């Protein structure tokens, strides 16, 4: 009996988390005037909302922009932060601990204080309305450095010594020797970085005004808030669905990795 109550709670809970998305998808697939009365099953299917959306905004371009930016940032974070993490964990040098403490400290710095000055820096460098503004500030991630440092500390020293004897440079050690041994961490940092970059919207709203360079969440936001959807609900929901689709598909396939990544990230906090 008690089990039954538990299952019912879980099922109600799951429905509460899934139904809104289901509603969104069906609402984007029905004719505009049916949305008001929609609950479970649509009466008629129409792709009109999607057709109009593709006509009104360059969503394909925004998709490409998001993919490009997220990939570059993720790649950059994996490369640069493992370099820094490696140095902090396996090399001895003056200032090693100082840098580590600075990293911890800056993690606590709220972004509200650096937001406006960073925008102004972009303006002064002439990077507004360029991919540089979207990518470069995100190439270093304190959290990633901490994670890599932690995992590199667990690598047995013999592995590194053997590679050194063979004449490998430090960079080769990191990327050719160590990386294959820390795949779970790479996946964790990779997934979290990719997801966070993909969903990032405040910064693009600030530094990008040119529609051709906007990221997908940014474009959808402006579409929803601005007047261009001409208050057609179905079109707005279609854009929201398209925005959600890539991450949800990735999530459905790599669910385990997503959840594990966030969980281990949370624990490291």
């Amino acid at each position: 009996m008690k089990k039954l109550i538990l299952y019912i709670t879980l099922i109600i809970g799951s429905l509460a988390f899934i139904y809104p998305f289901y509603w969104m998808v069906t609402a984007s697939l029905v004719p505009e005037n049916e949305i008001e009365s929609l609950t479970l099953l649509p009466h008629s299917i129409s792709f009109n909302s999607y057709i109009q959306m593709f006509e009104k905004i360059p969503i394909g371009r925004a998709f490409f922009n998001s993919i490009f930016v997220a990939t570059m940032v993720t790649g950059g974070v994996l490369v640069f932060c493992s370099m820094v993490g490696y140095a902090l964990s396996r090399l001895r040098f003056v200032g090693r601990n100082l840098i580590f403490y600075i990293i911890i400290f800056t993690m606590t710095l709220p972004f509200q204080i650096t937001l406006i000055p960073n925008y102004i820096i972009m303006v002064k460098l002439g990077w507004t309305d360029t991919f540089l503004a979207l990518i470069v500030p995100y190439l270093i991630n304190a959290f990633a450095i901490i994670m890599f440092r932690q995992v590199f500390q667990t690598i047995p020293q013999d592995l590194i010594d053997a590679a050194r004897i063979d004449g490998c440079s430090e960079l080769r050690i990191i990327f050719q020797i160590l990386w294959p041994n820390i795949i779970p961490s790479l996946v964790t940092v990779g997934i979290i970085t990719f997801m966070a970059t993909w969903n990032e919207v405040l910064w693009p709203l600030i530094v990008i005004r040119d529609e051709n360079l906007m990221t997908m969440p940014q474009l959808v936001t402006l579409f929803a808030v601005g007047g261009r959807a001409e208050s057609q609900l179905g079109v707005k929901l279609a854009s929201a669905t398209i925005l959600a689709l890539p991450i949800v598909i990735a999530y459905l396939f790599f669910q385990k990795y997503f959840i594990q990544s966030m969980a281990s990230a949370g624990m490291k906090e």
Partner: protein
Amino acid sequence: MKNNKLLPYLLVSPYLIHLMVFVAFPVIFSIYLTFNKWNIISPMEFIGFGNFLRVFQDALFFKALYNTLKFLIVHIPLQIIVALLLAEILNQKIKFRPFFRAAFFLPVVVSGVVVSMLWQQLYGFDTGILNRMLSTLGFGKVGWLVDPNMAMVSIAVMATWKNVGLYVILFLVGLQTVPPQYYEAADLEGANHWQKFWHITLPMINPTIFMVVILSTIGGFSLFIEPYIMTGGGPLNSTLSAVLYIYKQAFTNYHMGYSATLGFFFAFIILLVVVVQKRFIEKGES
């Protein structure tokens, strides 16, 4: 062999450069900006403490703080209770656990933009599902996003919906670290489920609860895209969040100096709140 001395510094250099350009310099520049008036295209104008004085006279600044507080008071307890409840249930011998876990976690990975647009419709006064349901059940409609007293609460509920999955997972991990012997010992002493929960589970997952509180607090002060999309800060500025206000002052009014000052003040308050929370919880632990 001779580059060994320089090498660590080379490896760390990306971080150091990034630190200088995107952290250290902005903080210093931010402080400099607070003493100036600037709209980007005209030259900067030094105004001393003008911005500071303006903050203290600014009703909207205090409104934003009040709104954030309102958000946190609803969001944090709700988050903890729901996440803990679901985690507790999932911790039992349940079949299909991966499915439920995946369902709860789904809103976490989806963009805040999608969630905001979606819930804006669900909360719609005439056509939203929630009010339609209430009508059919015989209750009156609720002004979820149009009632100045209700709007921030609605956003807090939505934020809970979006993030609770993450905390369910975190709590699950925490729950699973509790050694089963403790429970077995309690069983022997005849403790019921509630007593076990209160005296064994809760203290052991205190660090996780603490983390949830801190993360949610920081999240509350970072609220932007939700009010931006759903209400534009209204009705009557009841959903004007800290970051939204900074954004408006900077990019609608082009008061760069003033918005930097606001950022500075809000950052300071966040740090203060987090430190206080830390002290409070640490005292509780001892």
